[in-house]
């Protein structure tokens, strides 16, 4: 039977060949060197196969460049890609691209055309942008729709020369679900990270200085902001129109306006944040509902918390309010009790005793504008407020029904500050 044996033999060889061809990409992923000659990159990219690595030698490489294959691009120390202020310095349109160790400069300066240092297009899923240095670009990194991108360990220095609203943001995300932005150092430009209409992102362990809003959230749900440090920006964390966020372990130090600003933000959890020494408000809560604020530390601001615009059903308990000139500014006429399960907050200007030794002050705390300010300026006036004479007056006053027009009070103020984990 010659024919069947020949057939089998033929089929086996065919299968083997197909396997070899399929694995050829893996077997033969090459490292291609790119010299600093203008046009060299495009030439070599054209020859590259998906999975190859392009290694840029030190020196100036002329941009802008377009990456339309799934390649890895790494730079030797001091490899610079110069966009020459034309358009995006680097545009990525293929998935699974890796950019590592490059210095990327001089994108175009037209904001309406979204000129960016690295522009990642809608199909460039799973992009990895790591260990790069971006300087003098308009929008430094723009994730414009890819999923599961990773932007890690980059130094992002935006523009400082244009007017604030003409500058681009450091890292901008639009509809880029599942992105992870972590361990970046972001300065200048407009906002540090600006994200809109994305979901399931994690922004972790970034540091921000001298930006407008360190992190600016719009219409972005179910995401996490963890461990970031904002220092000397206008606003630390501006969270607007977003739901279901976890905001944990972040720091806002010496920001100009607000540490955290919530605008129509619902069902989020804010825990273990430290906000310190802001000129204006530690935290601004505007029309935000059903959030939980717990284990946060608000210290040294002009206003501890500005709570307004009908924000309802928030749980604010086990936080520390220390040395703010005005601990609470509440604009509204409801009676709000800021405690839960018999645990309130620690207020540094609370002059009450705790004679039943349960760690909870014996009388409720009512923030009071005039007395807050006095206690902030003269810490030892706490002693006056529990002097026998004044105590008698306060007791007499408290036996009359309160005719206050609403207000925040804390029925179980803590006697000692809450200890946050990392301290």
């Amino acid at each position, binding site marked *: 039977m010659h024919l069947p044996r020949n057939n089998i033999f033929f089929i086996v060889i065919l299968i083997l060949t197909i396997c070899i061809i399929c694995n050829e990409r893996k077997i033969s992923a090459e490292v291609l060197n790119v010299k600093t000659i203008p046009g060299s990159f495009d030439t070599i990219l054209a020859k590259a196969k998906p999975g190859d690595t392009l290694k840029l030698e030190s020196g100036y490489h002329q941009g802008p460049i377009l990456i339309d294959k799934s390649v890895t691009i790494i730079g030797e120390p001091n490899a610079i890609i110069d966009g020459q202020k034309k358009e995006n310095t680097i545009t990525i349109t293929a998935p699974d691209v890796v950019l590592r160790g490059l210095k990327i400069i001089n994108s175009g300066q037209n904001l309406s055309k979204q000129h960016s240092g690295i522009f990642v297009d809608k199909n460039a899923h799973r992009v990895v942008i790591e260990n790069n240095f971006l300087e003098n670009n308009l929008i430094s990194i723009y994730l414009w729709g890819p999923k599961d991108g990773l932007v890690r360990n980059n130094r992002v220095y935006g523009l400082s020369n244009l007017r604030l609203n003409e500058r681009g943001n450091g890292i901008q995300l639009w509809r880029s679900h599942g992105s992870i932005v972590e361990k970046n150092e972001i300065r200048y430009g407009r906002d540090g990270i600006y994200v809109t209409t994305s979901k399931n992102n994690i922004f972790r362990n970034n540091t921000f200085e001298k930006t407008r809003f360190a992190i600016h959230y719009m219409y972005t749900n179910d995401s996490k902001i963890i461990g970031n440090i904002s220092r000397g920006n206008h606003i630390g964390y501006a969270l607007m129109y977003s739901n279901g966020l976890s905001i944990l372990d972040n720091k806002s130090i010496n920001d100009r306006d607000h540490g955290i600003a919530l605008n129509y933000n619902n069902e989020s959890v804010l825990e273990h944040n430290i906000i310190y020494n802001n000129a204006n408000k530690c935290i601004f809560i505007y029309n935000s509902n059903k959030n939980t604020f717990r284990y946060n530390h608000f210290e040294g601001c002009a206003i501890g918390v500005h709570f307004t615009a009908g924000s309802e059903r928030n749980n604010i308990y086990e936080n520390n309010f*220390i040395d703010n000139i005005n601990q609470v500014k509440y604009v509204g006429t409801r009676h709000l009790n800021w405690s839960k399960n018999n645990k309130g907050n620690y207020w*540094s200007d*609370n*002059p*009450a*005793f*705790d*004679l*039943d*030794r*349960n760690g909870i*002050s014996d009388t409720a705390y009512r923030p009071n504008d*005039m*007395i807050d*300010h*006095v206690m902030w*300026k*003269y*810490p*030892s*006036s*706490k*002693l*006056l*407020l*529990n*002097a*026998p*004479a*004044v*105590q008698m*007056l306060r007791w007499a006053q408290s036996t009359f029904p309160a005719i206050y027009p609403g207000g925040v009070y804390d029925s179980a103020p803590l*006697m*000692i500050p809450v200890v946050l984990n990392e301290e």
Partner: protein
Amino acid sequence: MNIIFTIAKKEFQDGLRNRWILLATLLFVILTLSLVFLGSAPVGEVSAGLLSITIVSLTTLAVFIIPLISLILSYNAIVGEVERQTLILTLTLPLKRWHLILGKFFGHITLITIAITIGFCAAFILILILGNNIEINEWKAFVALFITSIFLSAVFISIGYLISVIVRRQETAAIMAVGVWLFFVLLYDMGLLSTIIFFQGKFINTEVFNFLLISNPTDAFRIFNLTGFDSVSVLSGMNTVASKINLPLYAPVGIIILWIIFPLVIAMEIFEKKEL
């Protein structure tokens, strides 16, 4: 020195005979014991807190009562004798005028010390019975309260002498004594608080405010006892204040001692020149 001791002894015996000191002691003991009982009622987590709770309550009580009984004891020291005409008799003896003041002062101090000691001992015994596991630190706070109470009483005895030496009639002295008590214990604090709230922090900076606060001996007494010891300051809500005031611990005590010495010295001066 013998003269001063003799005068002190005479004053002491007069005071005992007076029965007023007996009354004051009884009052003090009853109030102290009731404070201890009240403190034992809310058990909280550990009943060892009984002593610290008692110290906090006792401080407030002491600020009210001790100036009162001290002033009542001493307001009449000189002017009463003038009116009864026993002073002229005493001054015929070979003593200097300031010996008289100092001797009577020590006599009065001894009386008050006995009253305070009996009150504190009663509290001490009751706490031993009711409480358990009390640490050394809390006892330190208790002893500090005891000693500063005696100093506080000395302050107001001293002021009482000053009143006694200035006025001409007993009734005037009595009214001035009540006025002094009201001023130091009630009005000063309210006045200071109203002023700083009214000005909302302008015109008075923090150091000036601290100085104004501590120059009142009753407030110095409260600062020392409520912020000086950790176990107490947690209960009195002063635990962060203590670190911010930045006063050394001996500053309030120093002020109190100054308040003992100065009125007495001024009283002695005025008494030297007084026409009888």
